[in-house]
């Protein structure tokens, strides 16, 4: 059964549609900017933060922005956009939500909203009720692989015959909760993050929402299907990436196996690339074990920062458009390779015939994900 990745949208500091986001990426614009914050000795940090008033303006077309939190507005707008362009029967369309921390800052200081609104169940209910989805939303909260895992879960359920269409919506904020935590991990970069570079010194955080329609309905024209997917735990450490890249390597092998493809058939690799010393090194080890060192690879974190539960969905959407447009997007902020194994980092915008791509992600808790996207033409 062919599972297609159809209508999509990214809402981020780079724009309010996928095309705006792609345009910014092609122009080499980053969403990462210096934001003042008294937690930091140097007065602030680099992050990709969405302008709240710009968001409210965009949101006012579909609802009253004062009644919804920033994250709700982002995720509602994303969902609306996918629904606008598709005639879906909401009595049988699944809603799959991905977020790591949702509206977590409401737990502490909720001026305009009740503390209950902080929960992921509440976030899902708001989205479900706004549009009138009849099926109970499925909420995935699996650290930094959530957004991609949610797409894989949609595929698995469609293949099992549970439903034919699923809208996957992902979102996370640059909350004080998360910022303070990553700061305690000494994991935040002093500059915009530099994935896979020698002088990388940690992540930049980002916020964004994204949505995609995952469907088994046939569609004319160029299609991108999710061909194979696998997730494997490292069983090694809850926060430190495995030095052997075990879980990521196994995920890639499993996803290739399901797709009946070999590593040599992968044209493009969209990495997780958070720009921490250990994550990027782990990925390089895993990619080399999987014989992928020659494959053009990039990280989109230099454009967006790490958008946590949204990141793997955003990057899946961008991978999809790479395939459709036959374009390789540069790994922003890359300087000199700083991992122990060779990698073929995309350094400038490039037109190239692409058929098959691999998207990977890894996260706290030792989780890893690999997904194979493949282009086909339905005339």
């Amino acid at each position: 059964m062919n599972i297609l990745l159809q209508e999509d949208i990214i809402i981020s500091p780079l724009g309010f549609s996928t095309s705006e986001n792609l345009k910014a990426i092609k122009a080499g614009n980053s969403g990462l900017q210096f934001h003042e914050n008294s937690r930091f000795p140097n007065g602030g940090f680099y992050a990709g933060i969405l302008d709240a008033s710009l968001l409210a303006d965009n949101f006012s077309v579909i609802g009253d922005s004062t009644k919804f939190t920033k994250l709700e507005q982002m995720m509602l707008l994303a969902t609306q956009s996918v629904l606008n362009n598709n005639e879906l029967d909401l009595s049988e369309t699944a809603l799959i939500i991905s977020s790591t921390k949702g509206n977590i800052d409401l737990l502490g200081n909720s001026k305009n909203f009740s503390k209950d609104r902080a929960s992921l169940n509440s976030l899902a209910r708001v989205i479900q009720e706004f549009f009138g989805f009849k099926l109970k939303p499925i909420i995935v909260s699996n650290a930094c692989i959530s957004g991609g895992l949610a797409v894989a879960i949609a595929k698995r359920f469609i293949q099992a015959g549970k439903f034919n269409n699923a809208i996957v919506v992902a979102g996370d904020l640059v909350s004080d909760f998360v910022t303070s935590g990553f700061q305690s991990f000494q994991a935040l970069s002093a500059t915009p993050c530099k994935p896979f570079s020698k002088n990388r010194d940690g992540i930049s955080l980002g916020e964004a929402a994204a949505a995609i329609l995952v469907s088994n309905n046939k569609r004319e024209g160029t299609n991108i299907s999710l061909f194979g997917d696998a997730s494997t735990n490292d069983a090694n450490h809850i926060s430190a990436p495995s030095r052997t890249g075990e879980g990521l390597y196994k995920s890639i092998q499993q996803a290739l196996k399901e797709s009946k493809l070999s590593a040599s058939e992968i044209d493009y690799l969209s990495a997780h690339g958070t720009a921490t010393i250990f994550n990027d090194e782990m990925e390089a080890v895993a990619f080399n074990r999987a014989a992928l060192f020659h494959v053009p690879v990039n990280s989109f974190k230099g454009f967006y920062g790490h958008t946590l539960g949204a990141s793997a969905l955003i990057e899946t959407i961008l991978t999809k458009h790479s395939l459709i447009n036959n374009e390789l997007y540069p790994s922003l902020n890359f300087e000199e390779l700083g991992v122990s194994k060779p990698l073929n980092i995309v350094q400038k915008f490039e037109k190239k015939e692409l058929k098959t791509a691999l998207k990977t992600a890894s996260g706290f808790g030792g989780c890893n994900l690999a997904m194979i996207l493949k282009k086909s033409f339905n005339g």
Partner: protein
Amino acid sequence: MDRAKNHFITNSIRIKNEEIFLKKDTILSLDSKIDFSQFLKDSYKKLALNYPKYHKMDSLCKLGILGSTVLLRGQDFKANTALVLSNASSSHDVDIKHMQSMESIVSPAVFVYTLPNIVLGEISIKYKLQSENVFFIEDKFNADLLVDYSETILNSGKALSVVCGWIELKNDQYDVLLCLVSNNGEIPFTKENLEELYRFENE
């Protein structure tokens, strides 16, 4: 399309009200007056866990380790055992703890637990399970989702067995059901049977 008929609930455990049940038998019953942290500490000793890392974990992970240890003791399972867990409150209690520390010095050892799927990592580490993991958030115990998703994993060959269940913790109130699902056993892995195990409470 009931393809689950070849899978069975091989073993199950329940943790609730200062008691731990294996299948439906009480294997540990502690004084209901003790507080939650004492319950976690005493259970560790009584069940002879001998796993010092336990003391470093947040309460949700401690529940997961207690539960999985009792569940998997003496069971035959492979590294390819998937974990499919769910709850309503995500990592609520440790979220509150982290939030309270944000005014002064934040502890990395607290922050690292502020994701619900960390318990999947802890169980995977203890039992060397290199397999599929997912953590679902649901407003209440949802046997449909657990059975449906576990089935897709088993039927697609992504895993040989599954540990699925509910591991809820909010304001020290806990409610845990874990099941080992595999080809062995007598109780068919159905929504009704899973629901029944969840509803079961010792009289």
